């Protein structure tokens, strides 16, 4: 009974509560769950997809609100961003993606810093992004946690999908300590990380001691790393150079942890090793500037990962200047222009991203039971001159 009441109150509070049920017709419907459907239709009720098929073959309630577009895709998923913690003004008051007082702070939660009303969230939503994997950014050896949210809603609780998604780590010079503080070399980074994971293992063992006095006091940093050691939180490791990517794989071997590679500019040099490890990649935006740690980056890396059978998703990443965020729709377009086939490209910002982020039960494809998240286009989604003509999140038409 109480559960039923809760469901009803949720419906009243949720942004889709006011939204009518609706049917969306598509000249071409990319469901990302099977072949595209020409003249397709998607029926959404109560914020969820309830039917998908060819127009005329899906029974529609009389008088239902209908929309129509040349092309319809699943709501897009930005597989790695800092938007919401990092704001468009780029002033100290709106930059919460990085705290550098200590090299490792896995206890920092994204939920405590997210601004759901950030203008860049609106910007991305208007360009088809309905789900964000956002949180602490690169720049520290362990900068904190990430989370997954939807892009329509006024506060973090309203938009929450997954409050703790991954723990963000970063290898290479981009995460050296400020002002000559440790870690100042790659080897020092790995030594610190290994020591901390070993310490977390000891903490975990002591916590399970039968004697109350042998159990250490709660330590939020250690608790988070215990989740990493248990494989419940993947370590999201930002690394661009081949040697850093290999260090990440070595860490995974040593501690038997789940890792996800982030950035991975030189991944094309070692696709065999990444594929053998079965590690997914959240690839840097193809238009990320090709200098510094990314001096060997290529517009063709997405194609190389696809050709090697490595599961990957595209991300908007972190930008410290202009543009303050990249847009995955436009980044995927460049990957396509440089050899990635259309459907894997769409998957890299929808279904494949959902799989890697562990949210494929809710988003990433157009199937009955999934959230009613759709993007409507007036043509080829990746063409420069096409327009996003509508964005629907959990059945609500976003402005």
């Amino acid at each position: 009974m109480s559960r039923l009441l809760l469901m009803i109150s949720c419906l009243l509070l949720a942004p889709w509560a006011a939204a009518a049920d609706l049917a969306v017709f598509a000249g071409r419907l990319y469901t990302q769950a099977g072949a595209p459907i020409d003249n397709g239709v998607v029926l959404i009720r109560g914020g969820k997809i309830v039917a998908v098929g060819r127009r005329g073959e899906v029974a529609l309630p009389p008088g239902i609100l209908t929309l129509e577009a040349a092309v319809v895709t699943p709501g897009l998923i930005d597989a790695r961003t800092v938007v919401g913690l990092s704001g468009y003004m780029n002033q100290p008051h709106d930059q919460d993606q990085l705290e550098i007082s200590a090299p490792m702070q896995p206890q920092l939660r994204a939920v405590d810093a997210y601004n759901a009303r950030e203008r860049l969230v609106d910007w991305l939503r208007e360009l088809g992004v309905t789900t964000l994997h956002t949180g602490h950014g690169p720049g520290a050896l362990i900068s904190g946690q990430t989370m997954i949210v939807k892009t329509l809603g006024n506060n973090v609780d309203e938009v929450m999908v997954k409050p703790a998604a991954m723990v963000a780590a970063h290898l290479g010079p981009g995460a050296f300590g400020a002002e000559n503080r440790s870690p100042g070399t790659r080897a020092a980074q790995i030594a610190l990380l290994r020591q901390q994971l070993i310490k977390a293992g000891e903490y975990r063992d002591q916590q399970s001691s039968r004697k109350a006095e042998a159990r250490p006091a709660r330590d939020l940093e250690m608790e988070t790393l215990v989740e990493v050691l248990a494989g419940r939180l993947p370590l999201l490791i930002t690394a661009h150079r081949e040697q850093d990517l290999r260090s990440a794989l070595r860490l995974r071997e040593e501690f038997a942890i789940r890792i996800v590679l982030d950035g991975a500019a030189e991944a094309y040099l070692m696709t065999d090793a990444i594929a053998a490890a079965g590690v997914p990649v959240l690839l840097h935006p193809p238009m990320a500037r090709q200098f510094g740690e990314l001096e060997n980056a290529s517009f063709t890396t997405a194609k190389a990962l696809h050709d090697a059978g490595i599961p990957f998703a595209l991300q908007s990443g972190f930008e410290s200047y202009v543009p303050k965020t990249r847009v995955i729709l436009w980044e995927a377009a460049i990957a396509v222009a440089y050899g990635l086939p259309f459907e894997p490209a769409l998957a890299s910002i929808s279904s494949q991203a959902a799989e890697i982020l562990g949210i494929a039960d809710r988003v990433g494809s157009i199937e009955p039971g999934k959230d009613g998240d759709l993007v409507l286009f007036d043509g080829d989604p990746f063409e420069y001159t096409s327009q996003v003509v509508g964005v629907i999140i959990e059945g609500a038409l976003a402005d």
Partner: protein
Amino acid sequence: MRTLIFAVLCAAAVQAHAQERPIAFVGATLIPIEGEVIENGTLLVQSGRIVALGAAIDIPANAELRPVEGRVILPGLVDTHSHIGQVAGADMSGPIQPDVRALDAINVRHAGMLKARAGGITTVNIMPGSGHLLSGQTVYLKLREGNSIEDLAIRLDDGSLAGGIKMANGTNPLRPTPFPGTRGKSAALMRAHLVSAQEYCAKVADRKLAADKRPPRNLGLEAMCEALDGRRIVHHHTHRHDDVLTVLRLAREFDLRVVLHHVSEAGLVAREIAEAGAMASIIHIDSPGGKLEAMHLLPDNGLRLAQAGVLFAYHTDDPITDSRLFLRSAAMGVRFGLDRDTALATLTLNGAKMLDLEQRVGSLSPGKDADFVILDGDPLSVYTRVLETWIEGRQVFDLADPAHALLATGGYGAGRDSVATEVIQLEAMQ
């Protein structure tokens, strides 16, 4: 006599670049920018110049034929604002340094120069940054293959190297003393400098002045004289609407020829810009903000300028946007409402006008330099690639060449343009 020798040397220099045998590019869609699109056309070039173009032109018997059916030929792209070539201008010793020349800093072998060719850029204005009120003299280059800045330089009729002056206002030049701390101080410093330049230039120009009354040579003020007499265009970084008006006010007071750069809030003062007859060199950025002055910069900036009748061009501001994706800037303009013809002009002829080079580059017109780009499709499509870039009748980029293809996409070694110095620096610090 001296002039004669000089003229002969210049002619020799031009000949070194010239290609004698005519080349006919046959069967492409020609987009001349000036004039109608020509389907299945032929472009004939010789001695570094465009000789003729059309659907049915006479091809000389000795011409080399290059079949380019299904291709699209566009004039070489003109980038009015770029920082390729490891350019640096003024140092931190003061806010106004017109004596500093970009040409003394540029590494012609820098990967950025090669990548710009891969993007179809043939003419570029390389500028120092915007952290000063005046950060130095800019240099206009052709991205020819060459070993020295002189090989790439564009020469004016008097043999001097073409370039402008870089100025900036708004927040970028605001720094501790001796830099300005407010906008009012910025304008005051700049006006004072222009006034002293006016006085210097008047004395230098006064032939009646006795030798002992003539001012000693001042390299900075010499460059300012060229700005004041209109030979050097002022390329003025500016974002906020009120800063834009400050530039127009200074330009009016000192009769400067200015091109407004970035002009993020152009939409708010488009009428004033149009009335002043100023041109605008703008950038496409994928999201608003990143700095406070760009918080209102939206991708419809070009549309708003076009609607107000302001002549504008896109620029890369490389590394802010990648030279290889320069075509994309105009395509994004179209996405946000710009018409296609204007969009293509913003990559070519409009930029040429901002560099005083429209008689030489910016369109496929007989007599102009044979600078062009061969594409495999619609210039405004994401799927289109630059296949070849030609400058003055010579191919400088060929996607079919693996070394060039590496630069065109990036990849291992594509960005390496200097030795790794980190270890040496660490040792030197101890």
